């Protein structure tokens, strides 16, 4: 079974540019999550999809961040325009049923550097 895949693994952009991160969850997993870790800090929740619907987007920092999951398969997270404080590692995770005792499967993350 293929795991959660994220692309790109690294991205270096200049302040003001746009970047789009992609996440392919495990096939059949309806629940998809985006998280972010800023250097040395805790991993923070960004948002949660159930299929194509946003279940919880309380962690999205501001309207420069736009997440989509058209068709309920892969998801994209766009940052436009990027700011220096957006640098960090962006993780995607998926799970099948969304139960509270269910473990999440994580991708390897995208290291975003905004210069």
């Amino acid at each position: 079974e293929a795991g959660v895949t994220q692309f790109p693994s690294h991205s270096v952009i200049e302040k003001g540019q746009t970047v789009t991160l992609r996440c392919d969850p495990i096939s059949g997993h309806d629940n998809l999550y985006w998280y972010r870790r800023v250097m040395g800090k805790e991993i923070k929740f960004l948002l949660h999809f159930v299929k194509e619907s946003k279940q919880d987007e309380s962690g999205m920092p501001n309207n420069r961040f736009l997440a989509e999951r058209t068709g309920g398969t892969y998801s994209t997270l766009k940052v436009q325009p990027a700011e220096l404080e957006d640098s960090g590692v962006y993780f995607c995770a998926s799970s099948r049923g969304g139960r509270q005792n269910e473990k999440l499967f994580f991708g390897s993350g995208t290291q975003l550097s905004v210069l």
Partner: protein
Amino acid sequence: AQSVAQPEDQVNVAEGNPLTVKCTYSVSGNPYLFWYVQYPNRGLQFLLKYITGDNLVKGSYGFEAEFNKSQTSFHLKKPSALVSDSALYFCAVRDTGYNKLIFGAGTRLAVHP
């Protein structure tokens, strides 16, 4: 509000010695607690979870964790550390009422030969 604290940025231990990585939590209601590990250039991998039942939970790679309700702690342990255990360890609690994990800042475990 739910939160997780990992008081140590780094834990150093000699190979063969027991290890403990500390975690305390704050949550309303019954906690669902998790430990994840991140090896270099890899995603987080699930180690173990506490939902209910026995306070000592066994997980992958010989790790176990002890749930202590009175101390609101969920420390990760292993009787004999391996150099290959060196990694970044994250404690997490499931947000009650929502389907998201709240993570601690992580503890780097360094096991020396």
